[in-house]
């Protein structure tokens, strides 16, 4: 089926070339990093994880969100999602691919990455994260590809995928839970040391992922003959509504616990993020922007007339994306490291090269997504429309 990705209009090829340019730039920046070490990043002794891990964390959420399509469709036989489940699964593949690339980009010694397998260490959450992410990638690849292949042949999918699909549902939850455990189990990092971190991650994931899917579905409808359908998009919108509300709600649970208890090692991080701490407040405007976007999105989404207006829905989806991306992509990691356990403040901002590497990884993800969507949509288009070229008139 991959050959479908090799046929396309100039617009399609142009987009691929653009992505390849981005990938090239990212690769170039990474070569510099490979030569110079992570010194080219904005990371430091005190903020030892930065943009790469932040984006990794965000994308794990996007990947996990595929379950929001898989679960209603396969567990509750919600037929409306039948047409777009594959879009969710393929988005997950692209997202996990980016996750893995971000981890590799973040390693000081990528050439030793085999060591994680050669010296398996069950007491390390990172070891489990490696396992859940790779298995999730394989699960989605196998399930998505097999079901699409069966659809293309108009045959029922083979029986063995059923158990894999059921497995993929808790597995999606597991990837984000285990990723939250990377942070939530560390002594001395008060910002992360909270049981609600995993639920928070999941809530923001179920807001961000479906929001991305809504935007992708709208884009696909615009660019191709494949229409996800109004109902499917509206159901996604409802999921986003609940997701973003829960995201904000969980955030306030955290705020209450920290602010009411007034324990400094927990409180100072929030202070730093939202008001600045010891004169450092680089993230303050972003964090308020995120909150503003979150509230605006909620407003747009809870009012049914507004939600049903696809223009406003699109805006709400974008706002949701911005809100959750700032939350995880900027606040979550830096917020945990600043201030450090010694209550010293070292601020973090990504460097240009770091952002270029990040761009490259996003371009790889977009390339994977484009190729997979191209395949899926070509198959769907044929299935629904017969695939004949349009009349020349």
């Amino acid at each position, binding site marked *: 089926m991959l050959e479908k990705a090799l046929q396309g209009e100039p617009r399609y090829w142009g987009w691929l070339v653009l992505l390849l340019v981005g990938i090239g730039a990212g690769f170039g920046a990474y070569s510099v990093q490979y030569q110079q070490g992570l010194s080219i990043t904005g990371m430091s002794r005190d903020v030892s994880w930065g943009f790469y891990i932040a984006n990794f964390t965000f994308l794990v959420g996007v990947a996990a969100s595929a379950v929001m399509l898989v679960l209603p469709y396969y567990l509750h036989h919600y037929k409306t999602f039948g047409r777009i489940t594959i879009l969710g699964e393929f988005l997950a593949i692209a997202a996990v691919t980016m996750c893995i690339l971000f981890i590799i980009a973040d390693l000081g010694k990528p050439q030793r990455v085999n060591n994680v397998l050669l010296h398996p260490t069950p007491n390390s959450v990172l*070891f489990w994260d490696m396992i859940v992410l790779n298995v999730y990638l394989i699960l989605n690849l196998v399930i998505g590809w097999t079901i699409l292949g069966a659809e293309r042949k108009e045959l029922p999918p083979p029986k063995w995928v059923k158990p894999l699909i059921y497995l993929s549902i808790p597995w999606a939850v597991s990837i984000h839970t285990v990723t939250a455990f990377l942070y939530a189990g*560390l*002594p001395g990092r008060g910002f992360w040391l909270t049981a609600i971190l995993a639920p928070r991650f999941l809530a923001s994931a179920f807001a961000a992922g479906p929001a991305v899917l809504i935007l992708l579905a709208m884009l696909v409808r615009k660019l191709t003959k494949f229409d996800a359908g109004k109902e499917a998009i509206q159901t996604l919108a409802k999921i986003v509504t609940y997701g973003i509300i829960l995201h904000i709600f969980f955030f306030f649970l955290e705020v209450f616990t920290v602010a009411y208890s007034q324990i400094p090692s927990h409180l100072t991080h929030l202070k730093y993020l939202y008001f600045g701490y010891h004169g450092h407040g680089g993230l303050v405007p972003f964090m308020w922007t995120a909150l503003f976007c979150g509230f605006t999105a909620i407003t747009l989404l809870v009012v049914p007339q507004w939600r049903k207006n696809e223009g406003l829905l699109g805006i709400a989806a974008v706002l949701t994306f911005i809100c959750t991306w700032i939350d995880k992509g900027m606040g979550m990691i830096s917020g945990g490291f600043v201030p450090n356990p010694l209550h010293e403040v070292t601020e973090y901002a990504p460097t240009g090269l770091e952002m270029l590497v990040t761009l490259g990884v996003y371009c790889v993800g977009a390339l994977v997504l484009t190729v997979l969507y191209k395949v899926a949509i070509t198959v769907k288009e044929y299935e629904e429309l017969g695939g004949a070229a349009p009349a020349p008139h």
Partner: protein
Amino acid sequence: MMAFNRRDFLKIAGLSAAVGLGGQTAWELLLPGHLDAAEMPAASGLTAKRWGMALDVKKFTPAVRQACIGVCNQSHNVPKIDSKQGLKWIWEAGYEAAFPDLEAEYVEDEIKEMPFLVMCNHCDNPPCVRVCPTKATFKRGDGIVMMDMHRCIGCRFCMAACPYGSRSFNFHDPRKFLPDPAPNKDYPTRTKGVVEKCTFCTERLAVGKLPYCVEASQGAMLFGDMSDAGSAPRKALRTRYSIRRNAALGTNPQVYYLI
């Protein structure tokens, strides 16, 4: 001992006899089997059940502190990088930074003003070891939390886990910041991309010597087996009040500060 033993030799000898190989050929094949070698710790090495340290804070003068830091950096080829990407094995920290959980508005002036020498606490329950995905950092039988630089993949999970900021990452190639040749040619430098930290000078203990800093501290640092009630640190701790850094986290640090 995994590589060299006689049983393997015999197994291979039998195998090669079976395929009709003799003489020279068998010799070539079986060379590893002929290495009837053994590995062991040096007899002169210092041993303990759990190494630990007590710092008599008031004995430190600025010169002593600098001597301790200096000898450590020099002997371990720790490069001096003046940026937030620098490396620290042992360094000075103020009271509030060293003991943030013991925050008190009013404490003894001398304590409040004094810089403390801080380093890896060689915790009995080290979070850094718990999180390492490759066992590159591990706890030895004698309690020392050790780094295997050959195995570290540079994920920096340990840095996030350490509540003391004791770990440093080689953002740069350290040799760029060291004289050539390195100050101590008998001690390796590191490469860019691995994490490092204080090792309680395992290389010194192995040959019967105390850690460099202890030697340079002119008695201000007491080093010994914490499981031995007669050891120097234990004796001091019995008679003196001591504090530990962030002990509430349950890491059970093995570096005590005598107040």
